[in-house]
């Protein structure tokens, strides 16, 4: 009898081996990578762009995700927007997903065709050390702010973006990109350091350089003496993109 109980116990242990927090799996639709339902746009994409279409997945039942080559993203998106049979005229969202651990960061484009009532999610995967991709702002004006947010939160550089600068975080935020997985929840600087920096801000920090030019042009009201604070040099950078303002130049200034 005792032996019987032992074997039962061992069998139970064996059953438990694959479980535990994080390993317990919820039944659900999950991801289908094989046996994906046909999606008219994905089939047409494959026929037109061939190798540039990398993967096709189906998520949560009916959401189609297609991974494409980052180098040809702009071309593919233009085709999806302008081809009459596709006509994805509404770009609902541009965002990023970081899985952490040095895995590539995904840039996600959620598309919707009002005419055909069809959804398609286009993704590109970018290695963490080469986060740049062509901007789609020339195609959809709405991408402007979404891409700025993706840049602000993940540090993805969008080439040929008309106005790539931080949007939610302040322009002179120097702690990095908050939504990356390696960014600690409370920020990189201590609370004291964050307060010190906030107090050291100049009036000019609240304006864009272009806006200050307007002020200069008016004459008369120059910044008060002693506040000759160099504006971040931005003009020379490609695509008008501005990186986080130089940390060395500004960090010491408040003291």
């Amino acid at each position, binding site marked *: 009898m005792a032996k019987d109980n032992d074997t039962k116990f061992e069998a139970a242990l064996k059953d438990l081996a694959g479980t535990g927090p994080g390993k*317990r799996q*919820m*039944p*659900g639709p999950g991801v289908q990578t094989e046996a994906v339902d046909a999606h008219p746009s994905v089939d047409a994409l494959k026929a037109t762009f061939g190798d540039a279409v990398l993967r096709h997945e189906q998520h949560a039942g009916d959401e189609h995700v297609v991974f494409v080559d980052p180098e040809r993203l702009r071309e593919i998106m233009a085709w999806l927007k302008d081809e009459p049979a596709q006509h994805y005229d509404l770009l609902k969202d541009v*965002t990023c997903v970081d899985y952490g651990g040095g895995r590539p960061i995904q840039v996600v484009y959620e598309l919707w065709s*009002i005419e055909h*009532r069809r959804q398609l999610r286009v993704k590109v995967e970018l290695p963490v050390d080469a986060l740049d991709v062509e901007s789609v702002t020339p195609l959809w*004006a709405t991408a402007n702010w979404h891409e700025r947010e993706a840049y602000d939160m993940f540090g993805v550089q969008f080439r040929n973006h008309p106005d790539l600068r931080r949007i939610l*975080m302040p322009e002179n935020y120097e702690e990095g990109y908050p939504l990356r997985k390696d960014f600690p929840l409370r920020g990189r600087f201590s609370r004291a350091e964050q307060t010190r920096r906030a107090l050291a801000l100049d009036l000019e920090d609240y304006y864009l350089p272009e806006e200050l030019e307007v002020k200069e042009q008016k004459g008369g009201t120059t910044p008060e003496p002693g506040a000759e604070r160099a504006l971040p040099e931005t003009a020379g950078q490609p695509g008008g993109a501005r990186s986080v303002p130089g940390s060395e130049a500004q960090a010491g200034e408040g003291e």
Partner: protein
Amino acid sequence: MSTRTVEYTVSSNPEMGMDGRPVASPVFPVGMEPDFQGEHMLINIGPQHPATHGVLRLVLELDGETVVKCTPHIGYLHSSFEKLGEYRGWNQIIPLTDRMDYLAPLIYNVAYAAAVEKLMGIEITERCKVVRVMLMELDRIFSHLIWIGTTAIDIGAFTVFLWTFEERERIYNLHEALTGARITTSATRIGGMMADLPPGFTEAVQHFVDTLPKTLDEVDALLRNNNLWVGRNLDIGVISAEDAVNHGLTGPNLRASGVPYDVRKDRPYYDYETYDFDVPVGENGDCYDRYLVRMEEMRQSLRILQQTLDRLPDGPINVDNPRVILPSKTDCMSDMESMIHHFKVVMEGIPAPVGESWFGVESSKGELGMYVVSDGGSKPVRWRVRGPSFVNISTLPKLVEGHLVADVIATNASLDIVLGEIDR
């Protein structure tokens, strides 16, 4: 919508030149005018200004009274909700959602729960579906009422604000009866609701449905043909249908431009296809059409509310799935299995399958998308909110550049934004 009946027209403005541009009126004694030719002025609206509806800051570059450039500066209310969400279990995120759009909290609660349920493949009960539709339509009216009140204040009409707030107070009371909170409702749970409808709730909603049209008619009577209201709104902040789609506008703002896109019709959820309601569509895409569309939307929401009251089925509000729903306290105390389930759900959270889901609902301000990504754990890898207000405010420069500074106020008000969700 072809019910555009404007009986009053704006009298011609003597300060407006033949080319439609304003003629500068003399403010300096003759002979002493300083030469302002070609000089631009920089002016800040906000971050603390009643007409910015929160902590929005607009930097306007003005040539005289004409806006040359408008730059919205946002982020003053950034609370990092999306980052916080990555450190919380699926159910613990729900309180964050209603703090985004505090003008229509239940819509955000429902949208988030729906996205996670889709990711997990949970089919909620029939009663829960109808209840959620009822709550969402209530909050659509809730949000539109404050929109019309605050917009009227921005334009200069005070009475409307008092009348709509009186009506809102009744919805606040309904929130309170249902959840105990008036703004931060947190009413949904994954797989159901925090609680079933309290006794007397449906009767209260029925009373609301019966009596709101009178207030709507009164508000409409004050505004629709009001000379000031028409003058400040008609042909102001115009955006064409093509531009509106290109700028990603959704909801009433898009429909005012003549595009009949409504998530409830185009990608129905919660059996919206079985409800009988119309989608009002404007023609000109100006502030006045946005007003007309929202007024009509409230009436349509009342129709949907009436149908939810008529069809509200009996039955459980939560799914019968101990993996996601906490067992009742009585069961916990008397039944071993229930206690284990309770322990597991509380301590380990609800695991979601690997995958992702982007769920769009028609919020009061446009399409609200909840994007949840899971790697199989009990916390999301990424939780993203595609907020309609964020997109709405991004179109403001396009709408106001080249127009007068007073139109900035009217246009900004007509877009219907809430800063909690823009800054997140």
